[in-house]
């Protein structure tokens, strides 16, 4: 029983970190409707930038992390400007293909700049674990989860209350209608990609601290999809619920099934969950259920 509780609790906390990964994806869907296959790679880039700033350049933490966020926002806006804007009148197939290409570019570029070795991120909080009632959680996971909750709240507020947030949702709903109401589509697209970049910087910092910075982190990109498919492609609440579900599936299968089914099953289990969700409820728990079955 105590093992089960431990697995559940750490699953929920890790789930918050998955929600952070998915948030960057959701922001792009909300702002431009593009299914972004490069978010995982952008997160890896963020992890490498933050690790390079903090260790090689020696910038202090309070400056290094915000600086990474700024750098990655510029990267995100640059991706939109130079890769996606030239395609803005093309089909969705072309846009999605462009994000796949971007993923491949970043996957090649990152080890060419920083090499193949494992890097680390100096941790702000010492590597302890919190112990409550016999359940232990690494400090970094705990505080990251708290940060994610605050961030998710802020984005939820932004999308439901602010003028720009509503404009972004309008664009993803219907580009032409939004444009004819005077919404600046280019601005909206650029802002959503910049936000995705900034979120990727934070996700890179958190996941890099947890797992070490290394190009194998790109597997996180594949784990975004179970989160957003379960939660609904453009729902922030969905990203939280989906993230927690993925965290639980991963943690429980790591605890109980890895020995029987082979090492690494816990990474694949969320992907199997993804297939099951697609079979049952393809638009997710919180997605817009207006699906055209044609």
């Amino acid at each position, binding site marked *: 029983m105590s093992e089960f509780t431990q697995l559940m609790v750490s699953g929920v906390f890790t789930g918050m970190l998955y929600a952070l990964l998915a948030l960057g994806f959701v922001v792009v869907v909300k702002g431009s409707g593009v299914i972004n*296959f490069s978010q995982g790679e952008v997160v890896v880039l963020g992890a490498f930038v933050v690790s390079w700033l903090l260790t090689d350049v020696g910038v202090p933490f309070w400056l290094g992390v915000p600086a990474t966020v700024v750098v990655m926002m510029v990267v995100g806006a640059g991706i939109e400007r130079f890769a996606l804007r030239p395609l803005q009148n093309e089909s969705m197939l072309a846009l999605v293909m462009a994000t796949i290409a971007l993923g491949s570019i970043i996957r090649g570029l990152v080890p060419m700049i920083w090499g193949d070795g494992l890097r680390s991120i100096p941790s702000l909080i010492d590597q302890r674990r919190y112990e409550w009632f016999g359940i232990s959680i690494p400090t970094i996971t705990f505080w990251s989860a708290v940060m994610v909750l605050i961030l998710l709240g802020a984005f939820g507020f932004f999308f439901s209350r602010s003028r720009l947030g509503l404009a972004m949702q309008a664009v993803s709903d219907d580009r032409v209608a939004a444009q004819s109401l005077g919404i600046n589509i280019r601005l909206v697209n650029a802002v959503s990609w910049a936000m995705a970049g900034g979120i990727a910087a934070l996700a890179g910092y958190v996941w890099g601290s947890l797992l070490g910075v290394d190009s194998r982190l790109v597997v996180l990109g594949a784990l975004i999809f179970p989160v957003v498919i379960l939660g609904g492609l453009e729902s922030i609440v969905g990203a939280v619920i989906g993230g927690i579900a993925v965290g639980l599936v991963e943690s429980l299968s790591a605890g109980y099934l890895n020995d029987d089914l082979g090492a690494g099953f816990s990474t694949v289990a969320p992907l199997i969950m993804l297939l099951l969700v697609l079979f049952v409820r393809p638009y997710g728990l919180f997605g817009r259920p207006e699906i055209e079955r044609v």
Partner: protein
Amino acid sequence: METGRFHEKYAEEIAVYGTPYRRIWILAVLAVTFVVVPLVASPYWLVVLTLVGIAAVGATGLNVLVGYAGQISLGHAAFAAVGAYTSGLLVSRADAPFWVAIPTAMVAAGVFSLIFGLASLRVKGLYLAIATLAAQYIVQWILSSWTWITGGFQGIVIFEPIEIGPFDTTTPTGKYLLVFITLAVVVMFVENLMRSRSGRAMIAVRDQDIAAAGSAVSPLRYKLLAFFISSAIAGLSGVLYGYNAGLVSTEVFTLALSVQYLAMILVGGLGSIPGSILGAAFITMLPIWLRDLLPAVGIELSASVEVHLLTMLFGVAILLFLVLEPRGLYGLFRNIKDYFRMWPFSY
């Protein structure tokens, strides 16, 4: 003066030999491929062309899905792996003859892919790309951790050579012939598929799914059919890979290979068979050119940097062609040809 070719009957539209010259061209290409090249080419070029041919089989298959049905697959390397392992294991464990093993492998790859197709093709949108990304990771995990399937160290499966007339597939000529005979069959199949009701239905679903559904063309059915055919051909290219290398191991069929297939059809030209072959040639030759040209200009790269550089260049190639020439190399070729057909009076 000729101003262009205009079809007056539907039969002219779907004719394989649109002009009398086309028949001569096709015969010439076949003669060069199957007679001249095997006699003239050096073993080095036979090896390179064989690799191009294997890639061209996979790319032609993927083009059925992306070019004609308008869906993206990120799992074609995984389906190639299913094909390669099925045929390899059937031959090595069950002593099946190759003419049983190869069709079985294609069906296995197609049926396996349907799991992912059924999950994602029922709804509109590019969900197939997500499901096939999952397929890619699931297959990679199965290959690396279920050693009772793949057998032994790093999942290596040995392929027994096949005899083709006087050649067997241990010689470069035999491999070349096996691959290009297969490619010719695949090209003929896909060309005819596109002239049939099914092929036109796929294009209809790609262009206007609602109108297609209104014309009693079931989008799900034709998207699934395109995906099944495409994955079965990917399985076939996996089999060819196995016969060419003599063995398969788990590290071959990665996500990078799936992206490489996408790069081939985008560089070559979406929805065009000559485009698939041109793209396969371009993407397969790229590492060879890099290896020959970079040292010539004084840049020496280590093997690992070269892999990363290639990964990046494949992405750059996709992006450049998407933005600058969406119809690919074949579209470029057609433009140039049309320009010179009426030269100097082109308009």
